[in-house]
């Protein structure tokens, strides 16, 4: 089965976004827009890889898997705002992801880049 470049990129980015969102939530509870702002700030020039259209489905998927938990709290405009918080299972998943990425980065450095 052949995978074109865009598909490969999408797979890599999808795996990375899970970890990015979980890492932001690992620092404290946050809501959709707040998570978006934080990740965009951290990614700098690569901010385009996370779009709003991707973020909410991703958050809902993480919620469905039990990696994050959600609750409502009044926002600054008087309307309710949905906050997310990482669960214990989510923390374990993030730790595993970080280990995986470190391993991949190590292989890339040693084998592909020859450093």
């Amino acid at each position, binding site marked *: 089965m052949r995978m074109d470049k865009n598909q490969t990129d999408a797979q890599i980015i999808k795996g990375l976004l899970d970890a990015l969102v979980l890492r932001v939530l690992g620092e404290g509870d946050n*809501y*959709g*827009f707040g998570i*978006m702002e934080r990740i965009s700030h951290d990614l700098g020039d690569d901010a385009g890889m996370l*779009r*709003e*259209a*991707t973020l*909410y*489905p991703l958050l*809902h*998927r993480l*919620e*469905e898997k*039990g990696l994050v*938990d*959600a*609750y*409502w*709290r*009044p*926002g600054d*405009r*008087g*309307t*309710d*705002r*949905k906050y997310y918080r990482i*669960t*214990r*299972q989510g923390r374990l998943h993030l730790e595993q992801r970080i280990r995986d990425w470190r391993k991949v980065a190590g292989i890339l450095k040693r084998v592909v880049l020859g450093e």
Partner: protein
Amino acid sequence: MFLKRLLRLPGSSCPDEALTGDEILDAYIRDFDSRLLGSKYVRLVTLSEIRDHLEQAKALGASQGLDERAASRRATTAMGSPEEQAREQRAVLRARFWRIVAVSVVPGAIMMGAYEFLMPFLRGSSLHNVAFALLSGVWFALSFSAGVFVWPGRWLGEGRELGHPAETDFNVTYPKPMLVLQSVSITLGVASIMVCGAVGTIGLLRPDSQARQFVSPWMVPVSLALLVLTACGLFREPRSFRVRLPGFEVITWGGFAADVSWQSVVAVGTFNESLTRALNWLPLMRSGKYIDYVSVSGRKHRIMVRRDMLNADRFLQAAEGHLQQNRGKPVPDPRA
């Protein structure tokens, strides 16, 4: 299409609470809503989050010098196509729908298979009726659970009240249609147990009556045991909570109420902390929260607060807040 129309009831039009008053944002929200599944209540949960995001994105655009219309347009463009967003919500609902089917139908089929298998061995013996009664009880429990899960409010998790209740005085309860569904299920269950008990009694008193053909006298103790269990459940299981100073009231399905002061709350937690991964498969188990408190008699009680109850989050936050405040202080003697 039929399923979509069916699942959008009650309240097929876009809920007003989800709108912002901005023409461009509202057009986006209406378009998005038209592609969602679920009742008004279910859709509002999804729409509120998107509305909040759009409003903040618009405010950010305005703070960067864009005029109102340009800021709104940028916010909706960045959000992507409504269809892309809605596809995910539909996928979540579809997955939950099949999970409900699995929860109710698969064990039901296994149960009926077991009954059919046992029939030749039990025919003619009074155990046949006992097995039938037990399987009926299991079937009722499954139907009740499936009914609770099927109600669309369950499908997207946490319940929320429209608007803002007073911080110190509000009710934590199920949405009304769900309360009605649960009440009807309980009433039907109790009525069927009573009918079985009555027919069994007639069979016991008059062995030659027609009742004897349908239900064995064994049904009398079985029905009595089921009734006692149901009464205990109705007496203990909370139907709603009323939060008010200086604590909250636990109201059970049987209508009994118990006052609990905030000071007697000793723990707040999530069920999934102590459950296995296998049970986390059930949304109820995964997000179920508990509050432990010490009652007037000095006994420790655990109440389950389901996330699909209206204002459940607010209630849990209040309990956690009071627990933090009371940390380190001794639990007061409730009898004092």
